[in-house]
C-alpha cells in the first residue's frame, strides 16, 4: 500500500501566489523521503496540503491520497478523522508546539483526546519511556518550560506517532535545536514511524536519514534521486548551491594573528545572583581576526559578548579595548553590534538612509546620499535608500545592520548569533560578507550555537561551557 500518493498537485494561495506547480510523489510503506529547498520554495505548502490545512480560499488541483484515501476537495469532517490517525505531524519548535498552560502529558494525550478516544492506560508513560525520557511518570506532569528542547521534541514525536499512522510528516524537526541533538531526534523519528516525509533546508543532515530526496525551487521540482548520489555529485545548479551552503568547507588558510590587539579580556567574571554566567575568562583579539565562541544555550556566551561590547560591566577582571579599560573614554563606534533579530535592530519608523546616517552624525561627520548608497552596495544591497525595514527580508535587514555598523568605522564587531534566524543560503552569504570585513582589518567576535557554520569562516573557534572558556 502506498502511504502517500501525490499526482500533479498545484496550489494557488488566495492572494494569487502560486506556491506549488504540478508536483508528483509516491511514498510506499517503510520508505523515507526528504523534500529540500530554500525558504519560499513551497516545502511548507506541500505539508499543509497533505494535512488539508491550507488557508480557506486557496485553489488546489490534482490529487493527494493518504493511506489510499483522497484528501483534495473532501469535507473538513473527513479530513479531521485522518489527521493524527492516518498522517502524523512533527512540528519544528517543540516549545512553540506545546500549549504552555498544559503539562507535557496532556500534550501527548491530545493525540487520543482530539478524536474523543480513551487514552490507553500507560500509553503516555510507556511512550515517553520508549524515547528514553528519564522518570516519565513524574516528568509527564511537568510543564513544557521545565523540559529541555531535545527531550520535549522527543515527547512531541511520541504524540505525533501515537496512532502509528502509516505516514509521518516531519517539518524541519531539528532546526530549532542545538545541532548535536539533531541526529538523535531524527533517529527517534525514524524508529517510530511507518513511511516518513522529512522536510528540511539542510541537505547534509537529511542525507544521513532519508533514502530519496526531492529538491524544490519556487514551487517546482528541480531534482530528485538517492541522497548519496545527490550529495556527492550534484548536477542541478540549485542542488549544488544547497550542498555547498549546508556543509561549508572548513577554513583552509587560517590567517596569522598579526596586527596589534584590539581587545583584551583578563580574568573576567559576571554573576546574576546565584548564577555565575561568566567565570574567569581571558581572551585576546587582534585586528582582522574572527574569533568564534560556540556553546549550548545558557553557557554564558551571550553574556561574554555583552561584556566585550561594553554593554555590561564585569564583576571582576578587566576588558581593555584600544588600550583603555573603561568604555567611556573610548572613541564612539569603536565597538559595534550585530544582533540575532535583524529587523528589530533597525528602527521600523526610519527610512534606511536615516539609520545609516545615525552613526556618522554621532561622530560629527555627515553622510551624503551616494556615500550611503555605496555603503549598501558594499554589503550587496540595491541602493533604495527610502525603504523602511518593514519592507526588507530578514537577510536584507541583517545586511543593512552590518552596513550601519561599518559606517561607524569600528575596530571590533560583536555579533551574537548573526545567522540564527537566516535560512542556509542567506546565512552562507552573510558569513562570506563577515569574512570579507575581517580580511579588510575589522576584528569580529562571533557567538553561535552552530559549530559547523562558525568553523567555516572563523579563524579560531573556542567552546564555552557553564561560563568557562574551554
Amino acid at each position, binding site marked *: 500500500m502506498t502511504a502517500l500518493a501525490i499526482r500533479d498537485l498545484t496550489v494557488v494561495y488566495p492572494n494569487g501566489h502560486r506556491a506549488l506547480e504540478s508536483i508528483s510523489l509516491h511514498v510506499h510503506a517503510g520508505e523515507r523521503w526528504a523534500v529540500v529547498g530554500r525558504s519560499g520554495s513551497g516545502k511548507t505548502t506541500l505539508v499543509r496540503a497533505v*494535512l488539508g*490545512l491550507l488557508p480557506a480560499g486557496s485553489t488546489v488541483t490534482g490529487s493527494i491520497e493518504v493511506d489510499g484515501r483522497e484528501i483534495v476537495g473532501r469535507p473538513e469532517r473527513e479530513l*479531521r*478523522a*485522518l*489527521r*493524527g*490517525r492516518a498522517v502524523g*505531524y512533527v*512540528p519544528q*519548535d517543540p516549545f*512553540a*508546539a*506545546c*500549549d*504552555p*498552560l*498544559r503539562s507535557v502529558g496532556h500534550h501527548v494525550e*491530545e*493525540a487520543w*483526546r*482530539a*478524536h474523543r478516544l480513551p487514552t490507553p492506560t500507560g500509553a503516555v508513560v510507556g511512550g515517553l519511556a520508549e524515547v528514553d525520557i528519564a522518570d516519565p511518570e513524574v516528568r509527564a506532569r511537568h*510543564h513544557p*518550560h521545565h523540559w529541555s528542547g531535545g527531550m520535549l521534541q522527543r515527547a*512531541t514525536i511520541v*504524540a*505525533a506517532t501515537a496512532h502509528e499512522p502509516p505516514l509521518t510528516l516531519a517539518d524541519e524537526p531539528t532546526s530549532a535545536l542545538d545541532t548535536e541533538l539533531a541526529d538523535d531526534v531524527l533517529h527517534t523519528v525514524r524508529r517510530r514511524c511507518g513511511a516518513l516525509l522529512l522536510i528540511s533546508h539542510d541537505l547534509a543532515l537529511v542525507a544521513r536519514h532519508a533514502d530519496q530526496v526531492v529538491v524544490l525551487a519556487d514551487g517546482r521540482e528541480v531534482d530528485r534521486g538517492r541522497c548519496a548520489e545527490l550529495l556527492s555529485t550534484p548536477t542541478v545548479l540549485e542542488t549544488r548551491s544547497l550542498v555547498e551552503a549546508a556543509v561549508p568547507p572548513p577554513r583552509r588558510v587560517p590567517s596569522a594573528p598579526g596586527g596589534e590587539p584590539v581587545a583584551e579580556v583578563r580574568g573576567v567574571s559576571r554573576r546574576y545572583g546565584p548564577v555565575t554566567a561568566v567565570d574567569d575568562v581571558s581572551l585576546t583579539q587582534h585586528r582582522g581576526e574572527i574569533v568564534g565562541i560556540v556553546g549550548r544555550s545558557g553557557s554564558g556566551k551571550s553574556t561574554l559578548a555583552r561584556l566585550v561590547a561594553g554593554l555590561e560591566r564585569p564583576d571582576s577582571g578587566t576588558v581593555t579595548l584600544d588600550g583603555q579599560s573603561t568604555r567611556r573614554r573610548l572613541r564612539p563606534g569603536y565597538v559595534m553590534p550585530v544582533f540575532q533579530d535583524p529587523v528589530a535592530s533597525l528602527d521600523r519608523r526610519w527610512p534606511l538612509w536615516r539609520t545609516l546616517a545615525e552613526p556618522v552624525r554621532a561622530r560629527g561627520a555627515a553622510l551624503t546620499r551616494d556615500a550611503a548608497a555605496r555603503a549598501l552596495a558594499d554589503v550587496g544591497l540595491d541602493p533604495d535608500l527610502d525603504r523602511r525595514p518593514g519592507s526588507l527580508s530578514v537577510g536584507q535587514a541583517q545586511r543593512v545592520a552590518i552596513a550601519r555598523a561599518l559606517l561607524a568605522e569600528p575596530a571590533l564587531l560583536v555579533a551574537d548569533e548573526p545567522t540564527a534566524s537566516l535560512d542556509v543560503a542567506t546565512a552562507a552569504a552573510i558569513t562570506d560578507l563577515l569574512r570579507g570585513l575581517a580580511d579588510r582589518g575589522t576584528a569580529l567576535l562571533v557567538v553561535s550555537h552552530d559549530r559547523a557554520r562558525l568553523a567555516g569562516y572563523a579563524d579560531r573557534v573556542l567552546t564555552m561551557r557553564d561560563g568557562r572558556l574551554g
Partner: protein
Amino acid sequence: MLVLRRLGQALITLAGAGVLVFAMLAVTPGDPARRVLEARGVGEPSPPAIAAMRDELRLDDPLLARFGSWAADAARGNLGTSWRTGRPVSDEFAARLPATLRLTGAALALAVGTALVLGTTAALGAGRWPDVLARGIALAVLVVPSFVLGIVILDLVVVRAGLGRVIADGTWATVFLPALTLALGSVATWSRILRTSLLEAGSATHLRVSAARGAGPRRRLLVHQLPNAAAPFLTMVGLGTAALIGGAPIVESVFTWPGIGRYTVEAINARDMPVVVGFTLVAVLTYVVAGLIVDLVCAAIDPRLRS
C-alpha cells in the same frame, strides 16, 4: 513568593490611597466640628460644645498624629463621623453595602458574560459579519451614557410596560435592570480586549499543531485558545471593578438603588467628606482585592507565573 509579593504591592497601594485620601479630608474647607453638631440637631452650637467636639474628632492634634489615628480607625473599619447625619459612617455603610455588592456583583457577572459572548463572536468570525456585528454592538452600548439609558429604561420598561419596580429594594428580585445599565458601560472595552487576546492566542503555533492532531474547532477554542487569552482579559476585569464601583453612584441614584453609591451622591451634594472618603476607601479596597484575586487566578491558569 508570587502571592506575598502581590500582597505587599497591594498593601503599598492601599497605604498610598490612604495618604492621598486623608490629604483630601484634611484640606477640605468648613469646620467639621460645627457641622457634626448642627447635624445632630444642635441649632446654634456654643463655643464650648464646638471645642468638645473638636476634641472628640481629634481635630486639633498635629497632622501626623491625626493621620495615624485616622489610619488606625480606618483599618479597624471605623470611618469617622458623617458631617451630615452626625452618625458613624461605618454604620451607614454597613446597612447599605450589601445592596451595592449585590448590584456590582450582578453587573460584573453580566459584563463578563456579555463581553465573553461579544469578544468570542468577534474573534471567531474575525473580518466577517460576526466581527462587525459584535464590535457594532459593543460600540453601541459604550456610546450610550448609562444615565441616559437608565432614564429611558425606567420610563419605558418600568412605568409604561409595568416590568420591574421603580423603588428598587436592593434585593435580587429587582437587580437586573440597574445591573444591566451599570454593566453595559464596561462591556465595550472588555470585549475589545478579549477579541485582541483571542486573535493573538489564535495565531499561536500550538493551535495549528493540535489541528494537525485532529482536534475540532470547539476543542481548540475551549481547551487551548480561551485559557491562553484569559490572562489579559482577567487583568482588564480586575481593573474594571474600579470602573464598576465608580459608576455605581450614578446608576444607583437613577434607579433609587439603596446602596452606598446613592448615599455618597447625597453626601456629594452636602459636601460630607467623611462619607466620600469612606466610599473611596471601600472602592480602593475592592479594586485591590479584585486585583489580588485576578493575579491568583492568572497564576493558577499559567504555571510560568508561579516560578
